[in-house]
């Protein structure tokens, strides 16, 4: 696994939710959206994306439905209302967090102390 993929572990759930923000996708499309959306940095082993989707489904954040495509069974996922709320909340939290880190790293001067 690439170092970037290792680093994203703690954020994988919200990133998977984000890939479904524009509508339903099947597992492989979710993985591709993650890879393309990150410019190739987040390139997980494809087989591990499916269990993560199952975990989100068990948590009620996404729902899955079977269909048939090219003669194969295909499961597609969409955000549930709870998943949409979590995505909105996590986006807001991330913006605050990223803003604080950026401020720290890119350096506004430290306030003077007496």
């Amino acid at each position: 696994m690439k170092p970037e993929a290792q680093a994203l572990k703690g954020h994988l759930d919200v990133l998977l939710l984000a890939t479904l923000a524009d509508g339903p996708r099947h597992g492989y499309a979710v993985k591709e959206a993650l890879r393309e959306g990150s410019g190739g940095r987040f390139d997980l082993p494809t087989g591990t994306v499916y269990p993560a989707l199952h975990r989100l489904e068990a948590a009620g954040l996404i729902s899955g439905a079977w269909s048939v495509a090219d003669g194969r069974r295909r499961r597609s996922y969409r955000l549930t209302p709870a998943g949409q709320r979590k995505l909105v909340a996590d986006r807001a939290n991330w913006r605050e967090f990223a803003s604080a880190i950026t401020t720290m790293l890119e350096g506004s001067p430290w306030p003077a102390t007496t």
Partner: protein
Amino acid sequence: MAGHDLIDGYLATFARRLPADAVDELADGLTETYRRHLATGVDERAAAAGAVAEFGTPDVVIAAFVRQAPGRRVARLLLCWGPAVGLCWGTALVLGHWPVPLAVRLGVGLSLLTVIALLVVAATGLHSYRRTRLAAAAGLGVVGLDGALLVAVALTAPPFTWPLALAVPASLTRLALTARAIPRLLAHS
């Protein structure tokens, strides 16, 4: 399945070790991956090898499925909860001086050990999804044991003690939650 022996063999590994729905989902994704590799102009063997490599080794994929298996989660919850409930019942039995026949003690003790062993097996290990399925059998055992203890209390009406006052609602809650989880565990079997 996907059209190449390498991919069919890879999927056969999962078919032996994962639920059928999971295998169908993996087969769909693997076929898409294979076609994407083919579209880059490589030959079929290179496309199949590339798709399999992109999916991850069977052990990595199976471990990811095992980690999120409902049976593993339920088994871990029951193992965490068990000592507290067991302590309440044990203390209640000692303080209440219940006249429990030796055969009943042995039967309950052996059943309890069996349930614990099943839960430990279901909750540990990352290489076998089949192990997590034992949580359903263990759950049935938990329901049976809790039910038997509650029926015994109802029939014998032992004297009130605080451990008993804690043990009864704890067992009722565990029984209800476990009974609710069992159909889901069986559905993943």
